[in-house]
């Protein structure tokens, strides 16, 4: 039974994880000769993808799973805001943004989570 469940999760990984993801890389490989990177359709496609990604980030902050769900919403949003501000203020450094956001979240979690 466990073996079957395991086999099943790997099949799901290939069908709904690997294939829908890899198809765009393979398409890119096939189109790489003809397509102009600045064309309007690609600008739109990239905007759609960026919006999806933003939705995922927002979902993980506003509707988190696991241990993060135990941290109050105000701490999660405050930490994301502080990290974002640090990123803007400290030479648009991804590292600075992540470190500050994480520090605020950890401090908030230590203070507010029993």
């Amino acid at each position, binding site marked *: 039974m466990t073996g079957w469940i*395991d086999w099943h*999760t*790997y099949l*799901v*990984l290939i*069908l*709904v*994880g*690997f*294939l*829908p*993801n*890899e*198809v*765009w*890389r393979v398409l*890119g*490989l096939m189109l*790489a000769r003809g397509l102009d*990177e600045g064309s309007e359709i*690609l*600008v*739109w*496609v*990239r*905007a*759609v*993808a*960026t*919006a*999806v*990604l*933003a*939705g*995922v*980030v927002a*979902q*993980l902050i*506003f*509707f*988190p*799973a*696991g*241990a993060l769900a*135990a*941290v109050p919403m105000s701490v*999660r949003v405050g*930490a*994301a805001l502080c*990290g*974002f501000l640090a*990123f803007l203020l400290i030479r*648009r450094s*991804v590292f600075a943004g*992540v470190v500050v*956001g994480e520090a605020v*979240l*950890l401090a908030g*979690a230590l203070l507010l*989570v029993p």
Partner: protein
Amino acid sequence: MSTPLQPGPSQSTARAFLSGVVAAWTSVFALVLAGSYIGIGALAHDFGFSIGWMTASTLLVWAAPAQVILVSTLGAGAALIEVALAIALSAVRLLPMVVALLPLLRTERTRQRELILPTHFTAISMWVEALRLLPQIPRENRIAYCNGIGLGFMTIACIAGAIGYLLAGRLPLPLAATLLFLTPMAFLVSVIRNSRLMVDRLAFAIGFAVGPLMIWGKVDLALMWTGLIGGTVAHVAARLVARKGRPS
């Protein structure tokens, strides 16, 4: 100091590959990637996946946003078709990345199958570093160098994913929460950093606002609608602004 700034004499394929691996391991993205994958590993643990499955998803999918969607939607019991659609939408961005990267790698003698590995390795971190570093590499060494960057980053991601997975169950709650927060925090800033055009920034802002509303309203295919609405509105708005700003 010995790194040539101009295309230098060609090295052996193995040397080029190894210098690609070193470039990946010494890149700032190694840290962001490690952070993100510690978070994803912890997420995979919390949703009940095995560590082997987590590693396989890194090797096969090799796109942190898609892996976050995959773990959290599958773990939450979403319909498989919705998971596949959400993954496909999140991965569209890989297409223009591959299209922009491959011309840098190709020579007249390059066969299409030599480009399969660099194509699979293409992801945000690898793409940014490859585009930055490839002009310094002799053209005939670029595919090996690029595969080195890709494999270097992938190794870090697999190790970090396993570390996050193993740590997640054993950490006190505040630390576990901090690990899980690495993923949204790292993506928030790195996606904004990579959005140099107004249309991308607008798409991010609209997606960030619309996404939670869709989920809160329990809309079916919430991420797909978030992408289509956010992307289309941003695209139209950016074109309108560009037209207004340009005197005709």
